[in-house]
């Protein structure tokens, strides 16, 4: 059952069309990734879906409620984590959570119980009484997510949830999102971290310059780049002569030296190239390290959009 249905959605700011006629739907229980470079229209889309922005044209239906007519009804069932913090710096962590709970009509005892539960879940019980302004960036991010969960939303929107925070906090947030999803929460996630989308999402939409260029399940997207795989070797001694060994033994596969003492051998199937380790050994080359490189969502993204991963953060610049 779709919980988000978007048809021909357009959003313009003056002459600038930030979202240009996009269509997609999100099924209940999915983790749906909205992937694109900065300025692609991710935040604008999320703003329209959550009620922070008004659509210019098209149809939006969330949890069965049409926008803008039934926006408030839909808002009862959604939680939103924006790309920055939107909590009150002068309130404590606990006060922020209970206040957010009250905005959804939750009674005092219930919201206090729920706040304690979330603070515990996010590892913030020890700082519950501290003012939000004094929290670290990772703590602020976690509390902002907790605040979006206070009313047990059916759909959780997250805009760049792990952007700019430490590795440990990012890992904890990803684990929490996976756990939430296991418990039935639908997650709509925008990110420009391709690996994050690959790790979390069931389906992904690529958005570039306000247009969706591809929507598919992660499996189907990865199938597109086939079983292509590569072996990366770190060798002792001359990498160029080691590359010649590989070119002789595997004439139909592409072998290349990367210049930093590393070799790369590409093949269509792992079985075809795995004997390269023995071949190098037999030729007297010291193999110090071998890594298997599988096709990733990044390869699919580059193939579909023509944008290199490094360009993701530089593209057009700024949020959208």
């Amino acid at each position, binding site marked *: 059952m779709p919980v988000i249905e978007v048809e021909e959605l357009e959003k313009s700011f003056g002459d600038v069309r930030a979202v240009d006629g996009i269509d997609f739907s999100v099924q209940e229980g999915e983790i749906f990734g909205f992937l694109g470079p900065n300025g692609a229209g991710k935040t604008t889309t999320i703003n329209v879906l*959550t009620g*922070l922005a008004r659509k210019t044209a098209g149809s939006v239906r969330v949890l069965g409620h049409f926008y803008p007519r039934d926006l408030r009804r839909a808002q009862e069932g959604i939680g939103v984590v924006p790309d*920055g913090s939107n909590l009150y*710096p*002068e309130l404590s962590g606990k006060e922020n959570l209970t*206040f957010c709970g*009250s905005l*959804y*009509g939750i009674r005092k005892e219930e919201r206090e119980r729920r706040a304690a539960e979330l603070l515990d879940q996010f590892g913030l019980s020890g700082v519950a009484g501290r003012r939000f302004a004094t929290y670290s960036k990772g703590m602020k991010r976690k509390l902002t997510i907790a605040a979006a969960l206070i009313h047990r939303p059916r759909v959780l929107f997250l805009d760049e949830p792990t952007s700019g925070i430490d590795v440990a906090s990012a890992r904890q947030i990803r684990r929490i999102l996976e756990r939430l999803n296991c418990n039935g929460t639908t997650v709509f996630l925008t990110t420009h971290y391709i690996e994050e989308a690959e790790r979390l999402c069931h389906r992904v939409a690529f958005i570039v310059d306000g247009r969706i260029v591809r929507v598919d399940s992660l499996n189907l997207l990865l199938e597109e780049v086939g079983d292509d795989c590569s072996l990366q070797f770190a060798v002792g001694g001359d990498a160029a002569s080691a590359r010649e060994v590989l070119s002789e033994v595997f004439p139909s596969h592409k072998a290349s030296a990367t210049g930093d003492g590393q070799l790369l051998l590409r093949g269509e199937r792992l079985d075809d190239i795995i004997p390269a380790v023995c071949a190098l050994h037999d030729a007297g080359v010291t193999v110090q390290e071998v890594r298997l490189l599988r096709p990733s969502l990044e390869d699919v993204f580059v193939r579909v959009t023509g944008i290199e991963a490094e360009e993701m953060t530089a593209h057009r610049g700024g949020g959208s």
Partner: protein
Amino acid sequence: MNVWIPFLSILQKDMRAYYLKPPNISWGIIFPVAWTLMFFIRSGGDVEIRELLPGVMALSVLFGTTSMLAVTITFEKRSRAFERLILAPISLPVLLAAKTSGAIVFGIINSAVPLLFGVWFVDLSAANWSMVIAAVVLIAATSTFLGLMIAVSVREVFEAQTFSNFFRFPMVFLCGLFFPVHHLPLFLQPLSYALPLTYGNDLLREALWGGGQLHPLLSLAALTAFSVLLFYISLRNARRRWII
């Protein structure tokens, strides 16, 4: 959903976070006290104090409410905390009513300061207290909704302050607070009657010592109409500017 839960929670949060903070309490007390003392010292006589009291009360409410509301909303918009309110399943009229209720309460508290000074020096035994309460509440409401209109129209805190003064300072001279409206040049008098504080001040004068120039029902009706109009304009602008 029971809308009273978010309504009361926003009110309580604003009172605690902004209005009852020591610096703001001092603003709410020192400002009216300074005004009151200034005019008491200047007048020195019972009659003048009685005449000045309604104007000082009205002014305390006006300055307290417009400053606080315009600044707090602009501050929350800048820090994005206001987004949290827009994302909640609360209708915009309820949200605005909740945000303004704290300022209205703050304005009412402000008005009590010069009044408490007044009862020391002036015999107010003949005052119509229900009319005083109605006047203070309506002045607080119109001033707050004026602050709301300003808050909706600006982006920065300093803009809110500047814009507030653009409305407030002319009111000090045009609304009959320190000299009657009919003493103003003829061409300025219509402007006086286009400002809500003229009616608030006149109603307070009538309520405290029977010195009003207008019929109390006219003042009550005008203040109510100003409240509705300012709230409506703010609501319409908020719909256009906050949900882009």
